[in-house]
């Protein structure tokens, strides 16, 4: 059994992991970096380790050697990587295993296979998961790229073999662009991932993005925990997720979850994982990739299944059997997660940095707020822009939307701009409410990216006027403008 965990991450996910570890009676260690020595996650852990001075310039949470060394020095049993950073780095997992530290996640071999997009596709094909037409394996040269693209028909997408998170992708609309795009994608992949290999795939125009949460243990049991709808995206970044998906029929859900389970079983997947699919208008789904980590949007699944996914991760990593069977899993009600990022939506989602001077969190039944900041926290450009996640749970989708909306109305941040007005605009959108949206939703269906409350603009105008007239007042009454001689005389007269 795992007795202590080093959390190799920061922010809300570090707080989240610490919460479950505490519940399970496991000692948690957090890592303090010079970039945010007073971060909130440090007060969530039991013990703090200062990240040592190193000779290299690798960012703290990417420094494999030092992180494992720290775990060894402090005799820590296990490392939880969270999401991002080293969570899907097979070398890190391998280095942990070599040093007899439990890596909370799947085996290094599975991470490596799924991290290689081409191998992942091969595995998916072998386990009978539908794939988009495309090159079998990486494309050798420009000539081959042209031949494949012409065969499968445009548009096609060129992806980096080592890519991920929306990076290293190029969409090619017709034959005239393919040569140039191939060159660009390949050199971009070389620069970004140190691997020039790319592959070609049929490009689905405006699909839905649906993912299936699966869990497997070391005894070969694999179950699914339903799907998540993640089609509200901007530049491949998810902004609002829900579970279940309004687009799935029971039959389609059955087929997609079975496909995900078959894929996980074929690689003897141990831990929690996510199989991502693209769903077209005709109800056909295609394998996109598998994520071998806990995901940002995992709370929506936790809400509808009443399970703690971090706890499952830790139990499975300790070698325990899955505590639940597929028949025990009931998908109950509807959950929505709104990501609250420090971004200025009105300035094209540009980062909004500064100090959170005040914070008002909503209070409601059936809501959950996962955050790594509090009043006084500084939002810097060192880290990603996520400030908090608001997760709501209600019996129906309509009620969940209403609850999310009323909670966001009580959620106020002073000091930085956030995506709260954007999330409200999504929830208030009729296409979103109908559930017929796809990944082009933000681009095509949102005339305004921010939601305006009743009379909001009028109140803003009045505040501007109020500030203006009151400034006028204060200038007149300003003591410092009084002639010092007059003041002197007045004081004498007192």
């Amino acid at each position, binding site marked *: 059994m795992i007795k202590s965990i080093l959390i190799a991450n920061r922010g809300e996910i570090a707080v989240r992991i610490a919460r479950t570890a505490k519940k399970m009676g496991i000692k948690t260690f957090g890592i303090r970096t010079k970039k945010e020595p007073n971060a909130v996650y440090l007060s969530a852990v039991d013990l703090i380790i200062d990240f040592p001075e190193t000779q290299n310039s690798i960012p703290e949470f990417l420094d494999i050697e030092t992180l494992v060394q720290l775990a060894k020095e402090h005799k820590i049993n296990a490392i939880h990587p969270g999401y991002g950073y080293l969570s899907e780095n097979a070398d890190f997992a391998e280095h942990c295993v070599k040093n007899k530290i439990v890596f909370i996640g799947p085996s290094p071999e599975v991470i490596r296979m799924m991290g290689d997009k081409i191998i992942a596709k091969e595995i998916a094909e072998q386990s009978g998961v539908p794939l988009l037409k495309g090159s079998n394996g990486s494309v050798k040269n420009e000539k081959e790229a042209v031949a494949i693209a012409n065969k499968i028909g445009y548009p096609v997408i060129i992806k980096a073999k080592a890519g991920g998170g929306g990076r290293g992708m190029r969409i090619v609309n017709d034959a005239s662009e393919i040569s140039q795009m191939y060159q660009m994608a390949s050199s971009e992949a070389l620069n970004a991932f140190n691997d020039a290999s790319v592959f070609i795939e049929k490009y689905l125009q405006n699909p839905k993005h649906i993912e299936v949460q699966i869990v497997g243990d070391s005894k070969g049991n694999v179950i699914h925990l339903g799907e998540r709808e993640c089609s509200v995206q901007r530049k491949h970044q998810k902004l609002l997720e829900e579970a279940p998906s309004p687009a799935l029929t029971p039959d389609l859900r059955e087929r997609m979850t079975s496909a995900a389970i078959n894929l996980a079983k074929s690689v003897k997947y141990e831990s929690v994982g996510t199989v991502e699919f693209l769903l077209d208008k005709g109800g056909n789904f295609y394998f996109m990739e598998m994520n071998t980590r806990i995901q940002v949007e995992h709370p929506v699944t936790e809400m509808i299944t009443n399970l703690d996914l971090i706890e499952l991760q830790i139990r499975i990593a300790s070698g325990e059997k899955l505590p639940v069977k597929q028949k025990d899993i009931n998908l109950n009600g509807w959950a929505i997660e709104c990501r609250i990022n*420090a971004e*200025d939506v*009105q*300035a*094209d*989602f*540009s*980062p909004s*940095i500064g100090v959170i*001077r*005040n914070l*008002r969190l909503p209070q409601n039944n059936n809501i959950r707020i996962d955050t790594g900041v509090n009043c006084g926290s500084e939002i810097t*450009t060192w*880290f*990603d*822009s996520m400030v908090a996640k608001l997760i709501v749970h209600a019996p129906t989708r309509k009620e969940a939307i209403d609850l999310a909306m009323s909670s966001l*109305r009580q959620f*106020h*941040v*002073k000091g930085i*701009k*956030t995506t*709260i*007005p954007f999330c409200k605009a999504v929830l208030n959108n009729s296409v979103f409410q109908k559930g017929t949206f796809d990944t082009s939703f933000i681009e095509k269906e949102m005339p305004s990216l*921010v*939601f*305006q*409350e*009743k*009379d*909001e*603009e*009028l*109140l*803003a*105008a*009045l*505040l*501007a*006027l*109020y*500030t*203006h*007239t*009151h400034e*006028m*007042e204060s200038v*007149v009454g300003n003591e410092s403008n009084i002639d010092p001689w007059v003041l002197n005389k007045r004081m004498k007269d007192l």
Partner: protein
Amino acid sequence: MKLKNEKLIAVNTMTDKHYPVSVKKNYEFSVDKKKIDLSVIKEADGFTIVSANGVRYPAEVISKKQNTYEILINGVSYTFAVETPFSLIRKKVLSANKIFSKNESIKAPVPGKILDIFVQPGQTIEQGKPLLILEAMKMQNIINSPVKGVITKISTNIGNTVAKNDMLIEIEKI
């Protein structure tokens, strides 16, 4: 201090929407001859609450530049210029005669790294067209030209790390 009735107009500088308001004794506001029960309250937790017309929202003045105020209300920004009937006319005359500065400076909105620059000195740029990419918070931010003009100077290079408000590009408006 003016105590008599005064007409002021808050102009939304983005949409040019006008909010004419008559002001009495600096604090009594009326819109369309109807008195507005406006209150601005600083609450214990540091938020400022503006209430009027039966609604109350947290709001703050983020910046002030002469008579222009940027207001953040419910997390949404609005920029208002406070004008008098006279200053509105003056503004119209001035803009018709183009007395305003012809130069537009593009400064770094956040600290970050310059990934790419799409323009060269001497080049003509349309409004809204990309000037450069600034990487911050793991995101690539495209900085677009706010005006139509000619690039007069580029003060940074690809690969540079820039601080907030560092001068990046200067444009002469056409």
